[in-house]
């Protein structure tokens, strides 16, 4: 009985890991084999698909763009978000409760629904088809959850350290960057992981705003490659899919427990 249920659940995990097998196996198949033997184990190990993918699919351009968008958003969101969270949790300010409520509204508005006016706004600011054209909206939409999480974290910290720093004559900026920043590092790492997962795989906004090939991230670039190749050459598509997924797969293999903690942190913390 135990063996039976174990094997059933191993089968279930197998279906979750199937894409990995499928991408690897189809990327090793020639055009013909991809049709005749689409889901089996490849008969011969061939690498021409990868060579072709690297020459036709602008992998490194998209990889660079995805990296810039993700890193830019992480840096801006964490800096601005942690400063606001610090300000709301420590500084005496007439409107701080109001500001906290105002920022938390950001959790309700999905980015997709303001896309049309956002598109117009970015055109007006001459930010369409530029790196900032995606980084700034991404940051704006990430601020809410970042501030709320860091605010909860900071509220639970005692003020003694800062008081000591104050006695020693440090000003508020020194205190924040030298003392608070290292202490809230665990929460920042969690946010960093969450932002990476969200921005690296973001699709709807990038699809509209980064319309020029030169600025496309991996998600959009891959779709356009897929459309231009058509369904005629699955080996090539498989190779480009595997290349595009490699960064996330590597990150996942290195830090999957960290990712798991980060993804579930929001659920338990609330």
């Amino acid at each position, binding site marked *: 009985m135990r063996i039976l249920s174990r094997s059933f*659940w191993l089968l279930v*995990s197998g*279906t979750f*890991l199937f*894409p990995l097998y*499928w*991408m690897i196996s*189809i990327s090793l198949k020639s055009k013909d084999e991809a*049709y005749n033997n689409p889901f089996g184990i490849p008969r011969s190990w061939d690498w021409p698909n990868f060579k072709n993918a690297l020459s036709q699919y602008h992998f490194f351009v998209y990889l660079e763009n995805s990296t810039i968008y993700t890193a830019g958003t992480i840096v*801006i969101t964490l800096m601005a*978000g942690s*400063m*606001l969270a*610090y300000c709301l949790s*420590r*500084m005496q*300010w007439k409107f701080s409760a109001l500001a906290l409520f*105002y*920022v938390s*509204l*950001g959790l*309700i*508005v*999905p980015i*997709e*629904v*303001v*896309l049309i*006016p*956002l598109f117009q*706004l970015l055109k007006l600011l001459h930010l369409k088809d530029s790196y900032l054209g995606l980084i700034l909206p991404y*940051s*704006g939409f990430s*601020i809410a959850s970042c501030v709320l999480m860091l605010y909860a974290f900071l509220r639970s910290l005692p*003020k003694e350290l800062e008081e000591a720093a*104050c006695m020693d004559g440090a000003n*508020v*900026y020194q205190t*924040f960057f030298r003392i608070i920043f290292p202490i809230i590092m665990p929460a920042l790492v969690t946010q960093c992981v969450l932002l990476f997962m969200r921005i690296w*795989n973001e*699709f*709807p906004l990038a*699809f*509209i705003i980064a319309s020029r090939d030169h600025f496309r991230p*991996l998600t*959009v670039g891959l*779709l356009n490659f897929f459309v231009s190749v058509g*369904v005629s050459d699955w080996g090539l598509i498989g190779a480009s899919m595997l290349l*595009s997924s490699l960064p*996330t797969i590597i990150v*996942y293999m290195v830090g*999957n427990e960290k*990712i*798991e903690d980060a*993804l*579930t942190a*929001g*659920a*338990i913390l*609330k």
Partner: protein
Amino acid sequence: MNKYYSTKWSLLVFAVPALLLFTVFCVYPLLPEIWMSLHRNDGFRNLGFVGLDNFKDAFSSSSFWLAHRNTYLIVGISVLIGLPLSMMLALFMDAQTPWFRRIFKTSAMFPAILSVTVVSEMWVSFYDPNWGLFNSLLKSIGLGSWTHSWLTERRTVMPSIGLSFLWQYIGLNAMLFYAGIKTIPKNYFEAALIDGANFFKVSVKITIPLLQDIIKYVLILSTLGSMAFYSQVRVMTSGGPGDVSRTVVYQMYYTAFETSEFGKGTAIAVIFILECLLISFLIQRFVAREKLEF
């Protein structure tokens, strides 16, 4: 001490960057959105005030209603089928040995970290009418008459897209539920087990009721997530055949960017924002209202 924190300058420096970013890119666009929905606009020029005509047009178009049916079908699939399945996976995970749980967790989260483009393209290959996985399987077990051209037939296209979505996030939601199960003190279960309750009974009578906060959180997350369903449709069918698989967000994009009716597109957006607000209000109001402490 208070004075130390709150010099006017430091307040400005700390509060303004985030508030500015949030206001300009997240809140401010709602104003032109409402304004545009009352005008005709082709994306370049404003062509005059038209009152509520854009809204009337939206309500009288059949695509708009079809898009709503599709969107709520996806919401239904992910909430009514996806969440119970995720809960089962989570309960199962809890009952396993750590080693087995580690393997199961690692694989369950894997689809959710892949990009939606990769996952959707893979499912396109599964649904291929000639050599796809589903039709090949059906043929090999002698059910050749059950084969479909899954993504181009009116009746199968939306459920097929829904299945790929379900598969991608079921493991992630299970992880969220499991994180909740871990926070329940062990003595709750021990007491029940001593009284002779079995796994099923413990789950239904103890675990699930104690998880109501997490259930609410996941419910809001997956409802709002599937309301904004768009990317999978864009990759797998481009809304086709015709307008059969368009969702509300897809219809909004299509109206604005492919027919250059920005006014009408924003009207759909305004209606949709109201729906999102209403639904999150309803969940907040009626699901799991009392706060649990343990």
